[in-house]
């Protein structure tokens, strides 16, 4: 290895600016939470909001073209920027939704926000990593912070159990992922994604080595756990149900977006020559993920569990575009993730708003009569459920349309047919929630709910995002297409 330059240039700083700002902000909040006396720490959440806004503003520093820093370790190409913005939106919405929820549940200490910011840093590095080292570190920074966040309600046995399960299976998956990296390294001699691509292009004989294929399979397992593909999804419903609802929303959107970003970058940028070896496996995984997720979701009675299975099914839809594997496919993955982040955070925030301290009210039957008590909130819930089900004119419909038309263009007719059938099945359980909301009378006394203004803002932003992406998708889709030009 030739000795790398030891100078840190301005370009290096520009490339990691958002992560740098978030880290600095997290450190400040950590110190504040140690020094400010208990009872006067309410402002720490607003500090975290300011930190995320500052991190997003730091993206304006530097120009638009593809750049990289630290000898290609971290990339700042349009793909990374797109995901940095998605992750920034997710983090911001999660923190805003947390402001009221954390106080209600007694977890509004500074560490809660610090961990969210650190997880966000990990996600950004994962999406921007041009080297397996950075992708692995990003994955771990994100995962370790979320293990703790899942169990942050220390006295709630279910939250701790969620942390326990997520920790054991997450660490297990990391080991697989890491072994995959090690085997790819052993056969190509580099961790650099561009370098790996070069090796595969120049030496075509290396492709068929069993060690490469094993490494590829292990990487699929590692990513499969993080994205929750069937059959690596066992942890998802338990963890999503037990974790605090804000963290569930964060996991369902942020972890998935970051993991898909790294997944696309690794498989399409570093290993495109191996496509014949993974495309059939992905086909099977996509069908299994969509079908199992949707069918088990049909019988759920807890809305958090139902949304967990629904998130598994959505990962399956995204995988359909992944299998299709052309430029359009990559763009529809990006568009889908953007749409998915709005509709999912929105749905979880409605769940948060309808809960009370110590009584989460997450059974679907608890939603009876919400339509007459809180008409506006019920309308927002309807928008999110329609979008998740894929009914026009919402973001979910456009996202599914792009994904399935991509599959048809690439010649995967069966995959598209199975996907459409799955969406039809899925419509049943999303609309069932709305039947409770609008057509069932609630029993017992009406719970008085005080809505946190910040969380209401999240619902409004999400609903706007869902409708805007649904009605005027072309600008965003064009943006997604520009973001993936580096891939080929």
């Amino acid at each position, binding site marked *: *290895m030739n000795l790398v330059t030891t100078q840190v240039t301005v370009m290096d700083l520009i490339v990691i600016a958002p992560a740098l700002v978030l880290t600095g902000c997290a450190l400040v909040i950590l110190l504040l939470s140690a020094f400010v006396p208990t009872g006067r720490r309410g402002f720490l959440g607003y500090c975290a909001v300011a930190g995320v806004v500052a991190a997003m503003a730091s993206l304006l520093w530097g120009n638009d073209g593809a750049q990289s820093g630290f000898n290609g370790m971290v990339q700042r190409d349009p793909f990374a920027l797109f995901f940095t913005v998605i992750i920034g939106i997710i983090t911001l919405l999660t923190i805003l939704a947390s402001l009221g929820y954390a106080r209600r549940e007694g977890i509004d200490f500074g560490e809660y926000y610090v961990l969210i910011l650190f997880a966000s840093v990990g996600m950004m590095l994962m999406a921007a990593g041009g080297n397996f080292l950075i992708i*692995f570190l990003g994955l771990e920074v994100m995962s*370790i912070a979320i293990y703790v966040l899942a*169990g942050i309600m220390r006295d709630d046995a279910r939250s*701790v*159990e969620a942390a326990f399960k997520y920790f054991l299976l997450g660490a297990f998956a990391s*080991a697989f992922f890491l072994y995959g990296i*090690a085997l790819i390294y052993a056969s190509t001699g580099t*961790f650099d994604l561009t370098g790996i691509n070069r090796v595969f292009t120049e030496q075509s004989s290396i492709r068929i080595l069993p060690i490469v294929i094993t490494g590829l399979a292990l990487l699929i397992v590692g990513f499969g756990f993080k994205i929750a593909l069937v059959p690596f999804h066992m942890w998802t419903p338990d963890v999503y149900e037990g974790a605090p609802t804000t963290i569930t929303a964060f996991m369902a959107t942020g972890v998935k977006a970051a993991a898909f970003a790294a997944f696309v970058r690794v498989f399409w940028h570093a290993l495109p020559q191996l496509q014949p070896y993974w495309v059939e496996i992905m086909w099977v995984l996509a069908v299994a993920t969509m079908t199992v997720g949707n069918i088990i979701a049909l019988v759920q009675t807890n809305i958090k569990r139902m949304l967990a299975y629904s998130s598994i099914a959505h990962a399956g839809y995204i995988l359909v575009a992944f299998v299709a594997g052309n430029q359009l496919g990559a763009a529809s993955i990006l568009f889908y993730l953007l749409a998915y982040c709005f509709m999912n955070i929105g749905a979880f925030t409605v769940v948060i708003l309808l809960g009370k301290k110590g009584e989460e009210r997450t059974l679907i039957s608890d939603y009876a009569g919400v339509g007459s008590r809180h008409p506006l909130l019920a309308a927002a819930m309807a928008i999110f459920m329609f979008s998740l089900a894929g009914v026009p004119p919402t973001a979910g419909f456009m996202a599914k349309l792009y994904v399935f038309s991509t599959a048809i263009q690439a010649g995967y007719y069966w995959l598209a047919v199975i996907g459409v059938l799955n969406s039809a099945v899925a419509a049943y359980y999303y609309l069932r929630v709305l039947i409770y909301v609008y057509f069932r009378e609630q029993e017992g006394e009406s719970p008085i709910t005080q809505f946190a203004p910040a969380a209401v803002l999240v619902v409004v932003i999400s609903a706007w995002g869902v409708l805007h992406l649904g009605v005027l998708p072309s600008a965003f889709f064009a943006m997604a297409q520009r973001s993936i030009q580096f891939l080929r």
Partner: protein
Amino acid sequence: MPADIPSLYFLIVSALVFAIGAIGVLVRRNAIIIFMCIEMMLSAVNLTLITAAHYLNSLDGVLMVFFVMTVAAAEAAVGLAIFVLLFRNRKTIKADEINLLKG
């Protein structure tokens, strides 16, 4: 690394250690033992990385090992904290008795 032992042997040993760790995770019930098995898998990966770095004559693999070790330590700290918390809540760390959440 001794010169007369082929690199392949090290790779095979690390694959076996990794597999033993993975099977241990699947069959053991005590959370601490499961976690030890995961650590064993990470150690197996480290052996692969060192072997590869040795015969490729590159330092990248060794660097990666440092980071893997650090990450393993951070995971251990967080994991033990979660186990202590779980034990305080439930008085057990047997993985099959942790079953409040199921569908």
